[in-house]
């Protein structure tokens, strides 16, 4: 089994889609940090600006401030926790694609040949499922680590690294591992769903549909229960790491990290069983 998982992991990282997603994520991290580096001032704050409007023949309107004083200096110690939340959410979406492609792309390519070498379908499916999870987790850790390193470099050069100590590193490591776990489960979920859709696009569309449906379900009375139990919502909660929102109850009453983890794992296990069962019954061309 270890050999099979290793092979599938190699197959995962050899995919152009996966490499493209990694390049895209790292490119985005680099771009954001370059922009932040370029915009960062050496002074702690920009001066407030005020504008006065007046209409001809009337009294001047009182001046008002158009922008609050902003400190544009990068400070990794204070901002990276939020960066991880944002990046995690984006990486979960990319993990959907990466997980789905590992199996879905095989349907139109080499699955028939793979089954000549490993006819035990449950075993092959499980190996792909594990490889998708491990691969997505490794990709997430690579991107988050690159983002952290880039933030630290520009903070050291143009801002401040205050607050970065062993405790901070420990907390951020936990945040990154949480993100890696969320992305692993997202990829596993997508791979299991792709056993039914047989298409990467179909799988991603189904999962995005579920995400969008959450918004509408929250508007109806019974919708909150559905949302609370939905896999994508729980996954979103794990990736984001907080369960409060100012404007919308996005998590539908899901209050704790433990609850989100539990729900996500239950869904991952359920889809694994369902996907493997369906995979064993399929006719492969």
């Amino acid at each position: 089994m270890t050999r099979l998982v290793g092979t599938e992991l190699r197959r995962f990282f050899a995919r152009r889609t996966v490499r493209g997603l990694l390049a895209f994520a790292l490119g985005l991290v680099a771009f954001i940090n370059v922009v932040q580096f370029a915009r960062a001032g050496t002074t702690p704050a920009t001066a407030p600006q005020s504008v006065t409007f007046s209409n001809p023949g009337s009294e001047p309107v009182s001046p008002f401030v158009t922008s609050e004083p902003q400190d544009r200096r990068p400070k990794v110690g204070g901002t990276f926790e939020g960066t991880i939340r944002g990046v995690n959410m984006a990486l979960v979406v990319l993990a959907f694609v990466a997980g789905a492609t590992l199996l879905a792309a095989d349907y139109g390519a080499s699955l028939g040949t793979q089954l000549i070498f490993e006819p035990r379908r449950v075993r092959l499916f499980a190996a792909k499922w594990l490889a998708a999870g491990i691969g997505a987790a490794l990709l997430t850790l690579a991107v988050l680590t690159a983002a952290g390193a880039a933030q630290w470099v520009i903070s050291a050069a143009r801002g401040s690294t205050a607050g970065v100590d062993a405790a901070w590193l420990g907390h951020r490591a936990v945040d990154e591992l949480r993100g890696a776990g969320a992305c692993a489960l997202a990829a596993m979920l997508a791979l299991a769903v792709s056993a039914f859709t047989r298409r990467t696009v179909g799988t991603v569309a189904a999962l995005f549909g579920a995400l969008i449906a959450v918004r509408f379900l929250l508007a109806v009375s019974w919708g909150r229960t559905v949302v609370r139990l939905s896999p994508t919502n729980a996954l979103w909660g794990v990736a984001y790491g907080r369960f409060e929102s100012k404007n919308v109850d996005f998590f539908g009453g899901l209050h704790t990290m433990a609850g989100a983890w539990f729900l996500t794992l239950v869904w991952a296990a359920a889809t694994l069983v369902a996907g493997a069962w369906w995979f064993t019954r399929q006719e492969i061309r």
Partner: protein
Amino acid sequence: MGAAITVEGLRKEYSSRHGKVVALGGLDLTVPVGGVFGFLGANGAGKTTAIRAIVGHLRPSGGTVSVLDHEVPGQLAKVIDRVGALVEQPAFFPSFTGERNLELLARSRGFPLRRVDEVLHTVNLSERADSRFSTYSLGMRQRLGVAAVLLKDPELLILDEPANGLDPPGILEMRTLLRRLGAEGRTVFVSSHILSEVEQTADRLGIIAHGRAVATGTVREFLAGGVSRVRVRVAGGADATDAARQVLQAAGYPSTSAPDAHDDPDGALVVELAIERADEVTRALAQHDLWVRELSPIERTLEDAFLAATAEPEAGGQ
């Protein structure tokens, strides 16, 4: 050990908008161990469906399949390292190189990676090993498919139309390779609809039509079987030929015009008769002053045997 492949009462039905489609209607087939077994059938006869059932890619509606004395699909995993198969079109990941595709397959079963180079060399694909599969021609894809089959160094090779897309030198190489593998004691099960190719490669044949086996036997048995015929030409032109036809008809030897004598103004006749009894024809004609100028046996081709077998599928096995 018993047979390399045993298929009994194999059925496969599909539901479609037009009702039930029977792809296999109770196929019985036994492939003995060793040598090359040709699996012949017209397009749509059920060859690929049968092969897909043999390698466990589809769920039969009924019947049983066993490979190297192990039931498919339940026990297939126990013998899979002894079986290589190329089903329909070679199935590889298009954006990986040929070598990468084989390497991943080898790794999945723990085969030494040097086997990849060896089999690529065997199928003459070493020079393009680093090219993406998507850039391969049909013939090169076919070669890579055969390379994947050889990767396991299998006892049983199942090849679905392996010459498909190959150029004449490629076909010759494939024929030589299959013969060599069969001569080494391996069992090569090769499906095809190209009769001449199978005739030159196979030791034994199985013919499938409408999802059922209609004939099996050695190639020699197929060529020797059926009705023997002789080709007769008489001196004296077209009138003499017509007269000869009437004489033979009266003597109990019905004849037809030889199809290969269109350009011959005198014509020729084909008589259903074993060459050993040719003297009966010459005597009957001579008694009417018709003199034989040519009398030769017409050898039965595999095409004759195939057409005869598939024309009446209800007639059963040979």
